[in-house]
């Protein structure tokens, strides 16, 4: 029988479908009786998506302009 610690430690293989059938059964049995762990799983799953949104970066137009000039220069040099 898994406790909370075992369950949280095995979240990555669980979410990627890489757990052994026995361990998955133990984990599911724990989740069935542990609402805090169910919430933990939900928030663990949501973490990557929130981080992706928070870490979006845009390229300033002047950087894009410099990139084009740089590449044109290098391509011309190589001809």
């Amino acid at each position, binding site marked *: 029988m898994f*406790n*909370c*610690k*075992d369950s*949280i*430690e095995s*979240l*990555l*293989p669980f979410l990627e479908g890489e757990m052994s059938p026995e361990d998955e059964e133990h984990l599911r049995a724990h989740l069935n009786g542990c*609402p*805090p*762990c169910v*919430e*933990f799983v*939900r*928030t*663990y*799953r*949501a*973490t*990557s*998506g*929130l*981080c*992706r*949104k*928070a*870490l*979006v*970066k*845009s*390229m*300033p137009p002047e*950087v*894009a302009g*410099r*990139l*084009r000039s*740089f*590449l*044109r220069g*290098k*391509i011309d040099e*190589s001809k």
Partner: protein
Amino acid sequence: MTDTTVDDDRLLLTRAQGGDISAFEALVARHEEKVYGLALRMTRSEADAAEITQDTFLSAYQHLGEFRGEAAFGSWVHRIAANNALMRLRRQRVLDVVTEDLAGPEFTDRGSLAESPETDWSRRADDKMLDEELGRAIQEATDALPEGYREVFLLKDVEGLSYEEISEMVGISVPAVKSRLHRARLALREAIDAFYKEV
């Protein structure tokens, strides 16, 4: 990336490989934002990110003839950019791997969660707009990750590289990549949870 984008890239790539510079420039325009974003997230320096973007597309141009198209052009330049960013970080010797300060859930002696999450904020991930303060909290928490964990998290969960690609680039085994990723996710989950407890 949609199938149409990949098909359009293939057409542009074929033209670029035949010497059509405007086709190569069109490929650059389609992927520069993603490459720059990766470089800026990895290095946290606008100057480094601009240089990495330049080096990445120059390298792509110089090796156009070798690109056989087994992978999508976007994935190819993404990998070049990730390698360039990692090389730059290595040169700056910031690839420390320290685990002591990595946050995570706390457990009782019997292995039960010491604290229950106060709110289920998982649905916020579906919101189109991200709260500005939450965005800052996530940025700070990501910056605070030990470098070896931060890079694995960014490469996998933000840039979408495979475990095998990351393992090869970073020089650690796939199980070690997964372990770092899990620790990083736990630390970031804690930071987001703490944010929602405060608001």
